[in-house]
């Protein structure tokens, strides 16, 4: 079941401040964030976030059609390198 519209999209509050600061500084630094559960809002478009996957910060350049998804969707938490003896699978 989708989230009620009257609540608005879920975003961790401090993220808004962080994004605004980054916008104001107008440098294209990677903004490190841990909040994978936050929705990507229209005002984040164009910024680059480093979304933590439990180990590393995965750089995510936010584009227009990412709006409405969550940050976590763009930062995979599992690495699957293939089965042993599977010649087709490439090791990463």
């Amino acid at each position: 079941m989708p989230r009620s519209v009257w609540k608005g999209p879920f975003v961790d509050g401090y993220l808004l401040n962080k994004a605004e600061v980054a916008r104001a500084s107008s440098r294209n630094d990677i903004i490190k964030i841990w909040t994978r559960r936050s929705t990507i809002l229209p005002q984040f478009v164009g910024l680059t976030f480093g979304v933590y996957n439990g180990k590393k910060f995965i750089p995510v350049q936010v584009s227009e059609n990412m709006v409405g998804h969550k940050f976590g969707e763009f930062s995979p938490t599992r690495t699957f390198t293939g089965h042993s003896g599977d010649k087709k699978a490439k090791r990463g």
Partner: protein
Amino acid sequence: MARIAGVNIPTNKRVPISLRYIYGIGPKNAVEICDKLSIPHERRVNQLTDDEVLRIRELIDRDYRVEGDLRREVAMNIKRLMDMACYRGLRHRKGLPVRGQRTHTNARTRKGKAVPIAGKKKVTK
């Protein structure tokens, strides 16, 4: 022979049943179309008048997304996910279930027919 929305030629079945042969029209839409045009559900396609066939055709063209258009839309949605490199897109690329189902067993619809492990030595007694 009734030709509605391109290639579909379902005949000698009841109208709400045969409309479902069109991609994009399921049980609900089929009944809805019949009700809108006040065609009785028991009517068979070969008993429809030319005028009724024409009205069905017009209604579908105007209000419903079917066949090629719908297929293209679905393909575009999947392509969007894949280009975005989000989790659902990655699952589509790998041909694995997208909505969090288990893959330890089952998931054969997405993965295709089971293949034996290549190169695994058989245990000989």
